[in-house]
């Protein structure tokens, strides 16, 4: 089974984000970047399928030079080779624009399965994977926890609301967007990193793919969430505290 895993490099989870001068994107200069978590689960699922059935896992990512480190991490964890779509304007492209890049790089690979995280931790559109499927003309499903190979294709476990699961079957090739938490992620190892040095990492310039970079949706501005909640401790006897609470609910919160 040949599996392509589309991954994204995003700011580290605890990174202190600041808004850049344009007001349209964050200041990237001092940030540390990491692999988008749902993509890490997509990679893990791909590696487990390869462990079971053999085949090849190829990691693909779009972004500037720094994305190379995240692709190397994927190689270190067990991907066989990597494709880096070099593009410095990723932030200016919308989900369709990014999906065009990915689909352009994936198509000639002719994979049996394309896996990616269901959304990114920075923008969280949750669209890219689905659009890639549409552009490739492949069946797709979202919110997948596990994938099993069947005689004719694949069977996938899909997460629903309130603890319900749906099992779906489809033919391959197909595109699945993966939910976090379905597997235990493997840790990066020294041996993996050393072996990754000898694995192929192919760079493709975004322009080579001929994808239209004109966004259909334009990001006007971004803002940091404002801290609004504040906690007040009410002192006094329970009776006094209750009276004070009622007063506040009436006068300040205006819910009574």
């Amino acid at each position: 089974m040949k599996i392509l895993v589309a991954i994204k490099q995003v700011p580290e989870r605890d990174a202190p984000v600041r808004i850049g001068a344009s007001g349209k994107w964050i200041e990237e200069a001092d940030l540390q970047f990491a692999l988008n978590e749902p993509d890490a689960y997509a990679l893990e699922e791909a590696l487990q399928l390869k462990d079971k059935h053999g085949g090849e896992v190829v990691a693909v990512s779009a972004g500037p030079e720094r994305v190379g480190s995240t692709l190397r991490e994927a190689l270190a964890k067990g991907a066989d080779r990597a494709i880096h779509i070099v593009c410095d304007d990723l932030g200016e492209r919308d989900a369709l624009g990014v999906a065009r890049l990915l689909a352009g790089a994936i198509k000639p690979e002719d994979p049996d399965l394309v896996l990616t995280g269901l959304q990114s931790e920075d923008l969280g559109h949750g669209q890219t994977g689905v659009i890639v499927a549409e552009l490739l003309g492949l069946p797709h499903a979202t919110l997948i926890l596990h994938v099993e190979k069947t005689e004719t294709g694949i069977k996938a476990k899909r997460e629903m609301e309130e603890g319900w699961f749906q099992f779906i079957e489809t033919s391959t090739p197909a595109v699945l967007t993966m939910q976090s938490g379905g597997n235990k992620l493997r840790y990066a190892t020294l041996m993996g990193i050393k072996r990754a040095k000898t694995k192929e990492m192919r760079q493709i310039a975004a322009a080579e793919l001929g994808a239209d970079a004109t966004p259909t949706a334009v990001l006007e501005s971004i803002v940091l969430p404002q801290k609004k909640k504040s906690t007040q401790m009410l002192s006094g006897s329970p009776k006094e505290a209750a009276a004070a609470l009622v007063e506040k609910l009436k006068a300040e919160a205006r819910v009574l």
Partner: protein
Amino acid sequence: MISLYPTPAEPQHFSISEELLFAILAVLSIYAFWRRFSPILDRILKSKKDPDFHLKPIGKRIRDFLWEVLCQAKVIRQRPLPGLAHAFVFWAFCAFLLVSLNHCATLFGAGFLNPAGDLGRLYFYLAAIFALACAIGIAGLFARRFLVRPRWLGEKLSWESGLIALLIFILMVTYLAAFFIPDTSPAAHALWWTHTLTLLAFLPVIPHTKHLHLVLSPVTVFLSRGSFSRIPPLAGDEDFGLVAGGDLTQIVSLQAYSCVECGRCTEHCPANNTGKLLNPKEIVLGLRGYLNEYGPASEQPLLGKYNAQEAVFQCTTCGACEFQCPVGIEHVPILVGLRRGAVNTGAWEDEHGGKLFLALERGSNALGLSTAERDRFIEKNALPIFDGSQEYCLWLGCMGAYDPKGREIVLDLVRVLNHLGTSYGVLRKEKCTGDPVRRLGNDLLFQQLAESNLDALAQNKVKKMISICPHCVRTIQEDWKEYGQPPAIEHHSEFLSRHLSQLQPAQNKQKIVFHDPCYLGRYRNVYDEPRSVAALAGQLVEAPRSRERSFCCGAGGGLAFLGEETGERVSHKRAAELAATGAEVIAAGCPFCNTMFRDALAARGDGAPQLVDIAQLAARGLPRSGAS
């Protein structure tokens, strides 16, 4: 009628056939010795070279050799009675080197110790004193092994030990008996031959099993790694730690063959004492078994037939085994080496271990919390940010920044620092030092954490650091050296003990027991400083196992993060021992010990002693308003 002669009997004349017989037997004996010894020597020499081994500083090696081998200091100090018995056997052997050579030489009329001369006589008398002490000693050791049978000597009785004891006893007795017969007596001949045959029988037994330590352990002690629990760097792109036979270095192989199976390591091992699989003695003997079966070039995994992965990951790296070992075996680098082999190749799968690694791959602290928690703690308590103008960088560590008890300790230390007028600041960003992943064998993650931290410290121009955590102190000062030059760092007990005169004793004196953290005591040799600080708040009592014999809290080696233990919890055993001293206060010097005992004491219910850090005891005498 028995009479004592001034010199031991020496037969006056030997026949040619006697000389011939001796020559044949001597050649046979030496041949039998070499036949067994040479393959062992071959396996040691054919092992991989130790990439970082240096003979320098040679002075320390000579000192250690004199103290531990010739003086038998560790052997005696850690097990006084059997230790002394062993020391007498050893010293007698040293004295008998000349005596035995002379003994054989007399056969050819070439004796060089003249029994009639003053010097010769003096030497024979000296040897006689040692022979007597040795005979008593070996009889005592025989009784201990075969009658008392302490658990750590192993369940199986070793018949070779009995044979060796018997041969030594005969050697000593035949030497002493020679003082009771005249030179001319035919008994002198018989005695000479008994002594000689015993000597020739003894030689081939040496390379068999543990008695090899006679030959190897002096070399092992001399060729140590140079410092306690030193984890060697990995060499080259194909070195992932101890994976297979080809990874065993000459030092490891030498140590594996040096083990004398005394079981001191097992006796002091916290894992073994709480019903776990790990037995440090068996780890070393497992490597020996591996070398005997597969040899040093084998690709057979080291964790398998002879050593279990489960056991290797039960080690708290407390170092009690290594500290106790009288023949210079360094267990911690071996155990960590086996873990490196398993983790660096991805062979170790553990739910909690995997979580810890991922938390540190993606985040900054071993507790897996958001750095915003640390920022809030710093902000709420108005801790100054280090800007290069302060004297100390106060290293918070994961426990000091995120753990509620660790934070209390930091805040009390801060009160003391303010009282003393010492300037300090904390870093805006700090990552785990990598201690738990270093000891669990994850070199990739450790390198990333060490380099990232070294970078941050260099950028902030930090020169001096202070920390409440002995694990941070050890890792920063010793382990980071592999990746750069860390600033000087000390544990807060060392700092506080230097400022005792400026601290006020607490009003309310209590009975306090200080628990020596492994990474402060055995790893850093700091024992008196924390005690002097604790004494500010009361009367110190000692636990039965204290100072260099202290018993681990169970947290070290990354085990604090690995979830439930099998068998009894190490922390419960130690907490019970500390509580049994009758102390009202248990004082620790490590936030990990603190958190382990907090849970263990809570399980004991009411009436358990109060648990504090020494910084908190130092802060007790300060005026409550505190702020400087």
